[in-house]
């Protein structure tokens, strides 16, 4: 038995034994309160499942922390030279969907500059794979691509392709690349619109996958960086303080059967072409149909084909950005929730490896535990109330069962909170791991813990809502992630979180009526819900986030000493900002329709992308009539996308506008 299997066996054994003991204790608790109510019986399986879930996470975190203490390293940028790079070219894919083009292209520019510093820019071709539907954003992408191509000169190659129809969303976008250009590249690095990767990490990824022909996917865990709101800085800190502990534990657990998170990973193209076409799930959306969370499935398909899926926990230099407000975070989670719930159909599907099934199941549980937790809490309150009104002897409250209940609560809290303590201990052992020093790190952990206690019930309510919506057949719209800093107004916060406050008041009233003595125990839950409006407002505050930064709190390494690629990105964004102030303020559609140079740019991109869709003749007549009578600005938005997709009509309208 190899080390991974031994480790898996131990983790499973510990989780099972701890769960059996705890469930037994729980049974004693509910039996001790004057007999078992049927309501209480319902809570037993829920308790067992939820306890097993936190015990498993705790095991992974503890082993991960121990492993890091022994190793003493911190994921840094790989320190190798260009020699390790093979002669094979690597495609770097940046799929975009109505994202901010300035940010996307600034990121690409930064990565190319960093690669040029390592004398490796010629080994990587960047592809911006656009699925953008908003005509203005689409035209911004074209301008940004043209501008970047001009700035780069011969330094790096950036290609731009827009799909006229975004079939199968992001997975379809990547598949389209593979089918059209994949044969030209042995490997592809898949990024997200907000991803950044340092040159040394990209070179090392290529080197590792080249040296081991069995690696199908090599995932480098991304670190969230670059945001300033309090909520974002809390996530960034948590990801840097506790993320490595969990990731290390997960890596030890998974071994060569790891997972893929959809971006910041390198993939063997031929293996992907041969084995990773996504199946369509039986049944209708939202749980059937097209697969939304493609990454887990692609990893499982790669494993099924006999390839390794590895997690490079020793590599840093892999970055992403996180949502800046609670609501944006929830919007992203809703998409992930529906995607993960679809995996229930794959847990017991034929042909997958046991660990892939486990990954699918844990993805489902990541969201499904929230409604289970709420149901457990509710049933506990009801059970306690029923018991209270039927119990004749009041002394049962302070029986030995209460002591066991207290112990169970303490153990559960310890399993949830100890990984945070492991982070502090890790910093005490290896001070270089903390960007903010030992004391500030401990204080930051304390702040993050309080915040996470308050945010947990809100997120649990969100997740429960998403799960129920998905199960009741409500489909998720493919909405663009809000990536800019957006400070909520009080009105917005009240509108978004009034329901949560109401739920908090109802819960508080229910507990006060049913079992007043339990109020202190439920105060973190009810407190988070009652205060959800001010919490959401304060969490979105950039002033508060930056204030804590000035105090040296919640600091991450990249805020102290940003990597070169982050510095390049920031300066590219500043340059873009200065250019934006000089350009024409009219909508780009009008500018493209009237300006001969922009018109040519659009036509050439359309022709090259093979993306022309002939416009409906009736719409052409309508567009011409509007243009001739009222001008380009009067062309309705509903026609603009169709016009842009038919470059011949676009050219005709351009000439008509000039003749007019």
């Amino acid at each position, binding site marked *: 038995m190899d080390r991974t299997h031994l480790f898996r066996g131990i983790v499973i054994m510990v989780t099972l034994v701890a769960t059996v003991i705890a469930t037994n204790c729980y049974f004693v608790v509910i039996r001790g309160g004057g007999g078992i109510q049927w309501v209480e019986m319902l809570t037993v399986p829920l308790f067992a499942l939820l306890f097993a879930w936190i015990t498993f996470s705790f095991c992974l975190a503890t082993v991960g922390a121990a492993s890091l203490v022994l190793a003493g390293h911190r994921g840094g940028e790989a320190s190798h030279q260009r020699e390790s790079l093979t002669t094979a070219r690597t495609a770097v894919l940046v799929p975009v969907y109505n994202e901010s083009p300035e940010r996307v292209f600034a990121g690409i520019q930064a990565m190319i500059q960093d690669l040029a510093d390592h004398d490796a820019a010629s080994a990587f071709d960047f592809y911006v794979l656009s699925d953008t539907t908003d005509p203005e954003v689409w035209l911004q992408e074209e301008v940004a691509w*043209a501008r970047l191509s*001009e700035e780069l000169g011969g330094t790096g190659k950036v290609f731009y*392709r827009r799909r006229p129809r975004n079939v199968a969303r992001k997975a379809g976008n990547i598949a389209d690349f593979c089918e059209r250009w*994949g044969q030209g590249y042995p490997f592809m690095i898949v990024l997200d619109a907000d991803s950044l990767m340092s040159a040394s990490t990209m070179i090392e990824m290529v080197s590792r996958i080249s040296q081991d022909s069995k690696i199908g996917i090599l995932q480098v865990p991304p670190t969230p960086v670059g945001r300033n709101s309090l909520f974002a800085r809390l996530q960034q800190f948590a990801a840097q303080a506790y993320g490595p502990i969990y990731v290390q534990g997960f890596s030890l657990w998974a071994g060569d059967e790891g997972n893929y998170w959809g971006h910041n990973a390198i993939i063997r193209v031929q293996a992907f072409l041969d084995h990773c076409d996504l199946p369509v799930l039986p049944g209708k959306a939202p749980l059937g149909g097209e697969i939304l969370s493609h990454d887990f499935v692609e990893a499982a398909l790669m494993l099924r084909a006999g390839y390794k899926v590895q997690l490079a926990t020793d590599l840093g230099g892999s970055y992403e950005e996180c949502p800046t407000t609670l609501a944006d975070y929830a919007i992203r989670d809703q998409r992930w929730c529906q995607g993960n719930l679809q995996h229930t159909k794959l847990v017991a599907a034929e042909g997958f490896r046991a660990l892939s099934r486990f990954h699918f199941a844990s993805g489902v549980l990541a969201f499904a535990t929230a409604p289970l937790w709420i149901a457990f809490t509710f049933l506990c309150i009801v059970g306690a109330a029923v018991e209270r009104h039927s119990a004749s002897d009041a002394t049962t409250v302070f029986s030995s069962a209460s002591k066991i209940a207290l112990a169970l609560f303490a153990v559960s809290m310890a399993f949830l909170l100890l990984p945070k303590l492991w982070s502090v201990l890790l910093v005490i052992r290896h001070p270089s791991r903390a960007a903010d020093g030992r004391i500030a790190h401990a204080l930051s952990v304390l702040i993050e813990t309080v915040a996470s206690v308050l945010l947990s019930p809100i997120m649990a309510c969100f997740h429960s809502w998403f799960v129920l919506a998905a199960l009741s057949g409500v489909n998720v719209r493919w909405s663009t992630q809000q990536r800019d800093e957006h400070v909520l107004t009080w009105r917005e916060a009240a509108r978004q979180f009034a329901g949560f406050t109401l739920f908090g008041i109802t819960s508080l009233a229910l507990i006060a009526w049913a079992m007043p003595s339990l109020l202190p125990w439920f105060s973190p839950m009810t407190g988070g819900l009652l205060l959800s409006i001010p919490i959401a407002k304060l969490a979105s505050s950039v002033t508060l986030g930056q204030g804590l930064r000035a105090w040296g709190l919640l600091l991450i390494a990249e805020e102290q000493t940003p990597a070169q690629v982050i510095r390049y990105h920031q300066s590219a964004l500043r340059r873009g900002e200065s250019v934006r102030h000089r350009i024409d303020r009219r909508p780009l559609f009008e500018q493209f329709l009237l300006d001969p140079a922009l018109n040519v740019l659009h036509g050439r991109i359309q022709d090259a992308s093979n993306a022309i869709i002939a416009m409906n003749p009736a719409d052409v007549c309508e567009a011409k009539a509007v243009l001739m009578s009222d001008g380009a600005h009067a062309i309705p938005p509903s026609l603009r996308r169709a016009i842009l997709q038919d470059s011949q009509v676009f050219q005709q309208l351009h000439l008509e506008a000039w003749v007019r």
Partner: protein
Amino acid sequence: MSLDNSTAPVWTPDLSVSSFVSTRPPAVNTPAVRSEHREETLRLVQRYLRESRTVKADVIDREAERVVAHVERRLGDCQLVTAIEFKRSALGVAAERVDAIAAAVFPSVVPLEKPTTMAEAQAVHAVRWLRPGFWAGLATQRFKQSGITRLAASVRPSLTDE
């Protein structure tokens, strides 16, 4: 992207403008009117080339003159062409000229394709023991294989047996 092309290739106007010619009944123009159309069109083409930022400033007038002359030759008897058709045709030629110059200075939008197809995904089926009828089928199978059925078969052989 800067479209200022200082090394623009020498242009020979041989581009089609037929798609811009109207089929409406032609108006008859006097020489004075024709001259007016020509001047207007020339100015329009000059402005178009200037705004395209592809043609060097010192050759814009000459290029515009060539565009208009080319359109005059193509359209033949200008007495039969309206001012607007004349302009449309001239702009069409100018636009093609701008596009031809841009082709020489534009970076490659996408590389040459090397088409292939992804191997088709296998359909998703639940594991055998979760499929409907699996357990019932298993029970039937076990019964068929049991000693009772074997015994029954030996006692009552098939009529087709030898």
